[in-house]
């Protein structure tokens, strides 16, 4: 699909897709916990815009509900909760140093390429004009996973996990105009519960092992060293 054959709102959706991918990269590179949460909120906002636009393009107005849910949950509620958490845990000024950030970034760029390769056959199944973005959303999912892997702190791992969910949601919106409402509501609810559960978990982890560094969980191993 050549880009200049698309209508203007569709072009905007593509731009938003690219920006969502960029926000994933920023999250990956971000060393400060609070900035990372802000970036996550920004990604949610972009996602909300994209969903609204898709709703207006397609005339499927139930997507507007999804957009509103996204706005509420991913832009305000969860980031707000996380912010509260890190302030209460007193880690909002902490800096988390990545191993070799340039290499990780290059690896993430490779992931984008890989997901493009993987998405080629899937793309052929979709008829929407915005189907090119499937690869992007898959890349967002994979980069989310990479964030979880490359981080040590539980909070940032959770943010990575949430951004994976963003990628899934975006894929659903752009390739099939969203999942059925029930599924979507269920997922949103799951995320909400997960956010609260994680919040509870953080405190437990900290009281158990005295740190939020999940690498320390190693000491829970039953294997005798």
């Amino acid at each position, binding site marked *: 699909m050549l*880009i200049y054959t698309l209508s203007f709102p569709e072009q905007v959706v593509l731009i938003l897709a690219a920006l969502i991918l960029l926000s994933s990269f920023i999250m990956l590179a971000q060393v400060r916990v609070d900035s990372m949460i802000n970036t996550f909120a920004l990604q949610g906002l972009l996602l909300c815009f994209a969903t609204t636009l898709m709703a207006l393009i397609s005339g499927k107005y139930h997507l507007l509900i999804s957009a509103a849910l996204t706005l509420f949950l991913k832009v305000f509620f969860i980031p707000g909760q996380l912010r509260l958490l890190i302030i209460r845990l007193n880690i909002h000024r902490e800096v988390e140093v990545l191993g070799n950030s340039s290499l990780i970034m290059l690896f993430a760029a490779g992931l984008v390429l890989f997901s493009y390769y993987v998405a080629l056959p899937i793309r052929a199944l979709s008829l929407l004009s915005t189907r090119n973005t499937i690869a992007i959303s898959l890349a967002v999912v994979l980069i989310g996973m990479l964030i979880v892997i490359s981080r040590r702190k539980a909070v940032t791992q959770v943010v990575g996990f949430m951004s994976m969910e963003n990628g899934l949601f975006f894929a659903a919106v752009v390739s099939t105009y969203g999942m059925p409402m029930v599924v979507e509501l269920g997922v949103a609810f799951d995320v909400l519960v997960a956010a609260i559960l994680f919040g509870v978990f953080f405190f437990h982890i900290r009281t158990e092992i005295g740190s939020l560094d999940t690498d320390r969980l190693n000491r829970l191993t039953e294997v005798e060293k």
Partner: protein
Amino acid sequence: MIDWIFAFLQTVGFVFLAPLMAGWVKWLKCRLQNRQGPVPWQPYRDLLRLSRKQVVLADTASPVFRIAPYIVFSVTVVAVSVVPIISVQLPTAALADVIVLVGFLALARFFLSLAGMDIGTAFGGMGSSREVTISSLAEPALLMALFTLSMNASSTNLSIVIAHLVQSPFVLYPSLIFSSMGFILVAIAETGRIPIDNPATHLELTMIHEAMILEYSGRHLAMMEWAAMLKLTLYSVLIANLIVPWGVGMTLAPRALIIGSLSITCKLVLLGGFLAVSETVQAKMRLFRAPQYLGLAFILSLLGMMSHIILEVR
């Protein structure tokens, strides 16, 4: 024939007006920081004063040190001459495409760094070492961004790229957004501005460009300073005309030329303003954060290229 005369005049005009850009940025920056600031045409006074002063040469200087300013300056002038500034009907654009343009700037940098190594003081070597490090990290990002920009027009000839962008219907290219962000980051690094280098300091821990030209004086220093101003304005013009190409004339008709000059003036004034603001709100980075900064530029350019392939082509 008339286009060649136009190309010559454009180059000469650009060379003589470029210091104004540097002066404007400096003046605005001072105003933003609540300082009086030198008048925007202060660079002309400096250049004139320097060119009248006697050259004092270190006794350890070799001929390389003496010819380097001439090479740096004339290579930058040639680089300027191939960039369409007012109108795309520029015969010199066929002399050198955008890759050759990057090559010119690299040649200038090569001699600049050699000059830094020549006297045998610690400062010069330090400046050269840092300069080549930063530029070698910037180069892949720069070329990647330029490749992406040129892919839409499937040409690396600057005139044709700009003409293509102006004449084709307005499209929001995701790739353009990314590669222009990458390009701007690289341009800031290559022209030695905050947060990579500080053009206003002579503190050994922070300087790069100034360290290399520390031993220069008189007309040699004037040429080096002038070349640096040319480079700053050249990158600004590239940003202005590649990313926001509207206004560049398609022909040499008087109307097109007037619109072209007005638009490029507005764009440069705005860009200078942005530069001044960004330099005011930011601090200089540590040297070893520069790789991360340039890595970001590279990632942005890479994303631009990928989004061109994934989102735009088919």
